[in-house]
């Protein structure tokens, strides 16, 4: 099927990827310029090269540049994680959330707020990553059978784990008003108030996860044919699935740790790219590296604009924006 496509057919996607890159560059520029205090693009350019000074320059380099970089990293991580998790579970409903990643992080953060009286997103990073990783590893341990991950059990076990964690989170939040008040903003998922110092500790895990995901893309194509066929074609199914699972933990775990639970990007980006570039994972994964941040940054910019001077969490906007997109895409599904 997709794995058998000759390289020339693969190359047809390259112009689309380039177009995506251009769109992403435009988005990043807008993300630097637009906000409560709008800055002209020329000033942005000057500020980036260090020629401009004053309030505008400080806004651009001090606030918006970190925010945009965080958005790029988080969006790419979520998009790739979504593509990989759908590949290894062979289920279009799966997303990093399916492994319990968002809810694991959410529960850990709410407990940390409740027990340790934390108040700033910067302080939540390690709790969130630990919670996300623990939940995702537990979900995969549940699904292990005879040394392999069972896709159906992974999806089902992960979803169940997710519901259990969600109910515990609600319990803590309902039992303590203060936790509810602090946590509800983090739980919506946001890029605001994320300095680069939040991103740095997560960079190694992000890079390792990305490399791992790119390394297994050819094998994911074979996996799409079914376990038995993949085995017959000489792909170590169990090992590929484990590597994929690990990549998802690293990528999505870091993304959640930085930005909070953003559910929709990981689900929508692979579906969007699949419509445009086909289901070959060698195009799908690079496509998601572009589509993920594109969706996330667009949502973030809109979130800053719609209720100026206040702003709306990117998790909310991305779902609002992505939902009609996914619905329209779904209408095109031929089957």
């Amino acid at each position, binding site marked *: 099927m997709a794995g058998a496509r000759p390289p020339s057919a693969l190359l047809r996607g390259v112009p689309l990827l380039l177009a995506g890159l251009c769109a992403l560059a435009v988005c990043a520029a807008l993300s630097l310029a637009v906000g409560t205090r709008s800055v002209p693009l020329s000033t942005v350019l000057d500020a980036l090269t260090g020629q401009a000074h004053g309030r505008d320059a400080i806004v651009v380099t001090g606030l918006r540049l970190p925010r945009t970089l965080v958005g790029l990293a988080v969006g790419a991580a979520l998009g790739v994680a979504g593509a990989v998790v759908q590949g290894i579970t062979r289920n279009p409903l799966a997303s990093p959330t399916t492994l319990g990643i968002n809810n694991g992080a959410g529960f850990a953060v709410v407990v940390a707020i409740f027990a340790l009286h934390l108040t700033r997103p910067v302080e939540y990073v390690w709790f969130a990553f630990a919670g996300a990783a623990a939940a995702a590893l537990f979900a995969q341990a549940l699904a292990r*059978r005879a040394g392999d991950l069972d896709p*159906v059990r992974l999806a089902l076990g992960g979803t169940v784990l997710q519901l259990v964690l969600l109910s515990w989170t609600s319990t803590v939040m309902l039992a303590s008003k203060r936790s509810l008040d602090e946590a509800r903003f983090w739980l919506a998922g946001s890029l605001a108030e994320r300095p680069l110092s939040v991103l740095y500790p997560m960079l190694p895990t992000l890079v390792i996860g990305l490399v791992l995901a790119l390394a297994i893309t050819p094998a994911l194509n074979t996996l799409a044919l079914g376990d038995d066929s993949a085995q017959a074609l000489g792909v170590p199914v169990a090992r590929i699935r484990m590597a994929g699972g690990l990549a998802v933990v690293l990528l999505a775990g870091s993304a959640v740790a930085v930005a909070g639970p953003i559910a929709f990007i990981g689900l929508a980006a692979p579906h969007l790219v699949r419509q445009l570039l086909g289901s070959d994972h060698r195009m799908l994964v690079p496509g998601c590296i572009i589509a993920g941040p594109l969706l996330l940054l667009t949502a973030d910019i809109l979130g800053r604009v719609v209720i100026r001077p206040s702003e709306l969490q990117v998790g909310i906007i991305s*779902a609002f924006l992505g939902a009609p997109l996914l619905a329209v895409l779904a209408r095109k*599904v031929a089957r």
Partner: protein
Amino acid sequence: MSDVLRTEKARVAAPHAAGPTHAGRRTLLLTCAALVVLLALVTCSVAIGEVPLAPDAALKGLLGLGDAADVLIVQQFRAPRMVAAVIAGAGLAVAGALLQRMFRNPLASPDVMGVTGGASFGAVAMLAAGASQALIPLAALGGGLLAAVLLGVFGWRSGVSATRLVLVGLAVQAGLTAAVNFMVVRFPTELAGSALQWTTGSVYGRTWTEVWAAGAAVVVALAAAFLLHRKLAVLDLGDDSAGALGVNTDAARLQVLVTAVALASLAAALTGPVAFVALAVPHMVRFLAGPPTAGTLALTGLAGAVLLLASDLVAQYLLPVSGLPVGVVTATLGAPWLLVLMIRQSSSVNRSVR
């Protein structure tokens, strides 16, 4: 999705090979067991409380016999809550079973398809508008139906395809959840608290009016679900075979979908979107009783009722923090069962099917 389909086909084909009487007897036994447990839980839930009653006095009170004070306590305060939990549990579980079977996807459930998101949206919007408490169930029902209409508008295109509906459902759910999130973030803390309370799902303070109205409608929808069962079995064979057998697959799918949505939105109107029941109970029943039949559908309903009622009892009397909604318990109480069943099922036979 195709391998899930194959699994389902194998499961449908299995009973004829292995002997249908065995599976049938097992289902019957399990159904009896579920009935006994449900009866015990019903007795507990009408007997336990601020004024503890003897079990026989409580059951008599439920039927309107015995001491007038007992009758008042049981019928006015305890019975509506109990009945609401039973009806909603059954409705959610059957809705989940219908959707999972029709979409041939183990993750399909009203929570994924936008119905419960719609119910939350309706209720939280009412809270935001400051409307009276009595309007909230109606708003929840309206929200659920709104989600269904959105599903229909986007999902209908010269026929109903399973993949498209699932994707559209995801989109609807995501959009409505975002709307709820938006309101929770913009609310003052107290309102955010009550919104969270409601969206977690609670059976606190149900009145007979609500219970009768929703209950009657749920019973009708349940009857429809059982009538549709034959068509579902044919749909299991795949679109081509079902068409060849003379079933209009689009119409059949639409009927199943409408029934499932109605069940789920009515249940959500009664108790709020209680998580886990619709997703997990059908799986538990399938692990225990084997391939889906009309019997297992009934068992699914019973098991849902048992889970929700048991969770409500735990939330009311066993948790250290009082006043927590039932929705915080269902997953914790139900998950270990499901996980044990899942791990026990790891036989090599099933492996080869997948």
